[in-house]
């Protein structure tokens, strides 16, 4: 900018070329990113360091509050020697299976029902009170019911995840279907589309913006469903590990479990964001901006 401003207008040769401007902008952006990363690193170091320091000095009771070194030790034990309920990988696999299965079933059910009710007014009118009632039930209490129905196996956890995912996706799919530009539907119909084609080729792609937006929260709900289900009673899984640690007043164990879950959730979030970018490539402005929040 400053070069541009100082360069005399009659001498265009002195102006930085487009490539130079781009390069300057890029290096400025990289520098900024680096700075943000440094600050973030310092923040983490401060919190963890303070925690560790407090624990080792006895300011924070390490039995109650645990300590970073204790958490690391717990994680090492889990990954090297396994847990009381099999290897840590087995536990992760169990939780992820429940989560992903609950997520997929819940999303499919939510999208199908949301689009159907959004398209067919009569259906929406009939179903509205039931959906509202279902949504009003605090869904975590359904976990106890599912344990009675399905026992301690994974089915109950999947069911809880499905219920949680379903509602978050359903309302978005329904709203997205209602918001589809009527002009586009009319255009498709005049061009020769059947009602089914209108649904598949116009309504669903249009509502995709809404549906995909709900997937971030939905995966979180799937994870909550699986873990709460495990905490309520299970033979394996991360929720069950946390539950065990809690029973033994092992604060480090609880934190270690939370840490593993957070890593899994972040990995899933990354995948969903990639999927979102791909599905909504056509949009004039990308949804997930550079702020990444």
């Amino acid at each position: 900018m400053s070069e541009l401003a100082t360069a005399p207008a009659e001498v265009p040769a002195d102006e930085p070329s487009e490539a130079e401007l781009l390069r300057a902008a890029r290096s400025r952006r990289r520098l900024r990113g680096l700075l943000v990363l440094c600050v973030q690193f310092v923040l983490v170091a401060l919190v963890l360091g303070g925690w560790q320091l407090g624990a080792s000095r006895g300011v924070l009771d390490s039995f109650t509050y645990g300590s970073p070194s204790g958490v690391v030790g717990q994680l090492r034990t889990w990954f090297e020697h396994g847990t009381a309920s099999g290897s840590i990988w087995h536990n992760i696999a169990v939780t992820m299976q429940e989560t992903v299965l609950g997520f997929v079933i819940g999303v499919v059910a939510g999208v199908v029902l949301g689009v159907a009710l959004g398209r067919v007014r009569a259906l929406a009118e009939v179903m509205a009170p039931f959906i509202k009632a279902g949504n009003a039930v605090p869904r975590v209490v359904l976990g106890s019911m599912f344990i009675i129905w399905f026992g301690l196996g994974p089915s109950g956890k999947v069911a809880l995840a499905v219920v949680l995912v379903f509602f978050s996706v359903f309302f978005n799919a329904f709203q997205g279907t209602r918001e589809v530009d009527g002009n586009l539907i009319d255009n498709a119909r005049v061009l020769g589309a059947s009602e089914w084609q209108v649904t598949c080729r116009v309504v669903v792609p249009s509502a995709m913006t809404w549906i995909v937006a709900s997937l971030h929260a939905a995966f979180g709900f799937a994870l909550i469903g699986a873990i709460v289900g495990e905490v309520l009673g299970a033979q394996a899984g991360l929720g069950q590990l946390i539950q065990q640690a809690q029973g033994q007043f092992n604060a480090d164990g609880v934190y270690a479990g939370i840490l593993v879950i957070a890593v899994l959730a972040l990995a899933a979030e990354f995948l969903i964001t990639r999927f979102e970018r791909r599905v909504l490539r056509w949009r004039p402005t990308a949804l997930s901006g550079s702020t990444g929040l």
Partner: protein
Amino acid sequence: MNATTTDAVPAIELRGVTQRFRTPSGGVHTALHDLDMTVAPGEFCAVVGPTGCGKSTTLSLISGLKAASAGRTLLHGEPVTSLDRRVGFMFQTDAAFPWRTVLDNVAAGPRFRGVSRRDAVAGARDWLRRVGLSGFEDRLPHQLSGGMRKRVALAQTLINEPEILLMDEPFSALDVQTRQIVQDELLGLWELTRPAVVFVTHDLEEAIALADKVVVLTVGPGTVKDTFTIDLPRPRRVQEIRFDARFVALYERIWTSLRDEVRLAYARSAGADPGAPTKDATPSPATATTATGFSAPSEPATTPSDDAEVH
């Protein structure tokens, strides 16, 4: 029009059509009242009238997207019961599917109608060439200028080779230069397949330049006030025909008919007295031609340079 078309069954026939709507406050609003109108096969009919007089509603009825409250709508002598495959409809606002490329947008009609993907795409390429959009097949609609988006809509509609073409103020969002170019293109394409056209516009100049017949609707509830035959020779060039003495004479006659309706509509919406002068608001052909009276370009612009921002 000529003898062959007047003898035949009309392509479009509206008989005593009335359309009422429920208003949000629970009342009934009459948009069209006892409307009679016929369009012969191959005839280009322009419909003008003040805002809110029911022009768009008329097109919805012909297309079968809406059903009339009373009266009969006939296409080629058969009553309209649902959407008719012979009808093409170009909407006022952009109706291209924003997630599809230009090529897929144009291929949409044949695809919906069961044509194989290969044939549909081949046809779409052909039509994109005809509207001067070769090379833009892979663009998304939002990556095009306003004029180009209109051409996509035109190709998307015409690829189905409609016998009846409905157009709702299709070019109102374009700047004057782009509009004239696309108007000429429309006339050229219309000559290819010669569908019956109902072209809704609020621009009287556009109506006269394009049409065989101009129908003036009254202020709402809309009904036909006057019908004027436009006996200007074809082929026409939109930029030049406005200088024609016959054009100016027709403009004055039709404007006299339309003016009262426009004034009335304006008075209603503004709550002002109906005698208020509104003639200044609408350009006479003389002022309009001086405003845009540059030498006509010899070729339709097919480059992205004809940037016209819509909305």
